[in-house]
């Protein structure tokens, strides 16, 4: 399908299927009091998702993915994490990570 013809249909379809999983739980769960165990479980979701997103980024490479423990991504990650723990500044962490990664690419 060429992007000229039905690009609008593609965008709307992608928008709809992306929107629904964002909206349904919010709509269903914000109307009722959640049981304590469920809230406790949901509180662990952020840390779990962030780890699941970042670990493969830092520790694997290529496609299909291969385990690469030592690479620019992982070498820059350690001081970036330490900086984040020490300063608790998100903007600073982003900048430090970018600079470290850039410096490693120059080496």
């Amino acid at each position, binding site marked *: 399908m060429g992007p000229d013809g039905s690009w609008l249909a593609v965008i709307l379809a992608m928008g709809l299927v*992306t929107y629904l999983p964002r*909206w349904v739980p919010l709509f269903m769960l914000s109307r009722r009091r959640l049981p304590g165990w469920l809230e406790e479980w949901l509180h662990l979701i952020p840390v779990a998702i*962030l780890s699941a997103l970042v670990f493969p980024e830092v520790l694997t490479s290529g496609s299909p993915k291969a385990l690469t423990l030592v690479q620019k991504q992982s070498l820059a990650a350690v001081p970036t994490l330490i900086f984040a723990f020490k300063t608790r500044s998100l903007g600073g962490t982003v900048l430090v990570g970018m600079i470290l990664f850039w410096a490693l690419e120059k080496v």
Partner: protein
Amino acid sequence: MKHSEHASTLWAERIAAGIRAAWPICLAYFPVGIAFGVLAQKAGLSVFQTGAMSLVVFAGSSQFIGVSMLSNGASLTAIAATTFVVNLRHLLMSSSLAPYLQKTSTPFLFLFAYGITDESFAVNSMRFRSGGWDRWKALTVNLTASIAWATSSVAGAVSGRFIPPGFLGMDYAMVAMFLGLLAFQIRGPIHLATAFLSGTVAVLLALAMPGNSHVIVASLIAATGGFALSRAVKRRSSHGA
């Protein structure tokens, strides 16, 4: 008069707080949005179409996949199905934010749901948990991020080919932001254990299968594992007492 002045100051403060919390997201979105704009141009989308997709879909990785499928001649059904699977992880984020948005109006939820992304979710859940955060500040974060994403996509579509690849470590901006957000989420041994479990399972799954379903599967396993661990710890300490 006095009352309305008070109210407008409150709104200005909320919006300012939301934008301040969102600026690292904007910083990280910019290089990725530019990269997306360049790819969309190469795939044959116009500047307007690129901006429209970023505004309507507002989900980075699925847009990269969607655009490359589009240029490979994939069908509408195939693109929609792939996008759905790639973005299913938002189910978990939406569920996790629900406790903070109890008794919120339906129009608010419609608007708020639109802006739930990996990044806005992580920033807002961190802020909600540390207190002093409200739903209007959270909505400001979501919408600021959306504007930054759409703007940078358009910037990439217009002028991205002039920026050399790898410029100033831009490729690492998103990873660095996730690392920072992860560091802020770690509060005590249960969180640390959950993080390690999730990261390990995610790496193993990512090695074993293509795509990005490892994110949702690893998160479910790790949150459940962390929950079981915290219950076990509580039971032991109550027995000991």
